[in-house]
């Protein structure tokens, strides 16, 4: 059976969650591997949320926020961007491929882009194979 990854996605309420809603309203089709969590702003996505998702068995984590300059809260997405680069380095040092964590910008009108992004990320994670974090932690403890 083909490996079906689980991807946890954090979407900001104003742009990306609305964009994902639009993909639905427009009946666009995309891979069902994604599990969405709504946050008010991508700036709310704490590093612990991302690590927790991997710890619980996620094979990939996606964060989506408003495009640079369009943040509903002015600059939360920039804060997220900074954390993202640090987090990518961090998971790489943990021995993970940094592509398992991906940040992208989806506006409220970009339903199509959201659907394409999910498909693309799902494909990437499929190629990377299952994430071993949960398994490793369970073996260690």
């Amino acid at each position, binding site marked *: 059976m083909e490996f079906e990854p689980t991807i946890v996605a954090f979407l900001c309420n*104003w742009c990306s969650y609305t964009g*994902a809603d639009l*993909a*639905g309203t427009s009946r666009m089709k995309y891979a069902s591997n994604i599990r969405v*969590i709504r946050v008010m702003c991508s700036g709310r996505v704490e590093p612990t949320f991302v690590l927790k998702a991997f710890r619980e068995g996620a094979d990939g984590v996606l964060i989506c926020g408003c495009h640079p300059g369009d943040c509903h809260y002015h600059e*939360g997405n920039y804060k997220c961007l900074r954390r993202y680069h640090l987090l990518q380095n961090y998971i790489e040092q943990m021995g993970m491929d940094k592509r398992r964590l991906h940040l992208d910008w989806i*506006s409220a009108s970009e339903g199509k882009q959201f659907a394409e992004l999910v498909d693309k990320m799902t494909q990437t994670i499929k190629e990377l194979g299952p994430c071993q974090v949960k398994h490793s932690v369970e073996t260690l403890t």
Partner: protein
Amino acid sequence: MEEIRIGVYVCWCGTNIAKMVDVEAVAKAMREIPGVIVAKDYKYMCSDPGQELIIQDIKEHNLNRVVVSACSPRIHELTFRKALENAGLNPYMFEMANIREHDSWVHTDRAEATQKAKALVAGAINRVRWHESLDKRSVEINPATLIIGGGIAGISAALEIADAGKQVYLVEKQSQLGGTVAKLDLLFPHLDSAQQLIQPKINRAMNHLSIQCFLNAEIREVFGYIGNFEAKVYQKDDLETEIQFGNVIVATGLKPFDPSKIDQLNYKRLPNVITSLELEEKLLSGNLVMDNGKDPKHIALIHCIGSRNKNHHEYCSRTCCNTALKYSNQIRSAFPDAAIYEIYSDIRSFGKGCEELYTHTARQDVMFLMYDQKGEVPKITEARHSEKVNMMLEFREQLSGEHVEVPADLVVLMVAMEAHENAKEIAHAVGVSMCGNSFYIEKHPKLDPVATTTGGVYVVGSCQSPKDIPDSVSQARAAAARIMADINFGSVEVEVTTAVVNEDICCGCQTCISVCPYTAIHFDAEKNVSVVNEILCKGCGTCGSACPTGAIRSRHFTDKQILSQIEGLMSMQLQH
């Protein structure tokens, strides 16, 4: 600690969800989760009987948490929160799982969609365990209103509110009110005078005791929240005026598309290729001539310039077809013998009296030629000296399928409407979002077309999408009515999902203060802790993610809630 008693409701949404998700199986799986007392599926949870089902269960089973898995929370979260309130529960003891927009509508495999629904609902169940009662906060409404943009929409809204005796601050960037309508000659479909329509309104707005007009003025930043905003109006000579207001109407209008972006139109290079607004200028001055002062004998109107084309704007600008038909009539009465060509791609003469205008125009000896605006617009070149006209238009006529050449002395480009060039700055200042094409996004396209996701901020007229005068005025008056209702009520309930500091854990590092975009956090030096001003805080949660000790909690988006939601989601993950 009280026992957690959760009710879970899985909506079919008719067949919208039930067709792709096995709602019964989802409800059944949820019954296995500790704390879930009842889990049911029902045809339409948002209907009155659906809500009643929840209310009855809350009472009968002593539920203290509710999860509804249905459509997007952006649509019905408030509906269900209200139902909880009606049953005597705090409305925040509720969580919604989106299994329609994010599931049944976007997937094609029923087993996968059902599996995903289980995960999303399990996540919501885990999250709602950690929900806390939050008190609603009621704020008083400042009865003054700020209106940005003094075109027909802004003026109409201003007069509506001012006539009710409430203060309006009308801020216009230009040196006079009137916007685009003040630049027009006649209006479709009845060819009545734009000036007779707009000038009395301008005069009334300028002289109204309850309207303070600011000309040559701009707003750079708006502070506060619904009911209690404040801003500075900047005018020439560093003149600044501070104003306070309870609501904002954005009516910044439109900008015409620049046709010099399309090379083969030769706009700006050929002097007798002009835009629709430039033709209005000529008509308004009563001087419809070519650049050499002579009367044109062949006039071509090209539709859809910049509209309905992927390279420019995919949308239809809605007014250009009717405007072009209006021009044909005006030109015909000015030059009874002139040849008039409407070079169109589809005539969209919708609206009251407009199809009639089309029928009437077609009888005025006007030649209608169809081009493919998704392909190439007509190529405009200078005519050879032997020709009696000064330009030639070349294109493939769609109905005959033939390559045609049309002579012209004057070419009018029916240019698209774009959002105003300052749309982005205004969006930032007042906190509204934009579509990809720079028009503002309304709260709901059908059910809440003039409100935005920011409380107390409304968008009306062409800044929201291309519009004609009746639509702009309707929107303006609708927004005015919404605001008057709030002013009349006197207060409004606002979200209380702000950040809060646990002073016992706060180490006084002040990291939160440096990341807060609203300067809503200050430092209490005596206690050595950060303090959140709940009035200024908008609940983005950025401080919560930055706090190294976990002292700041984002209410309703706490670490515990989100981490539990992750656990819940992953408890139903696909098997590797």
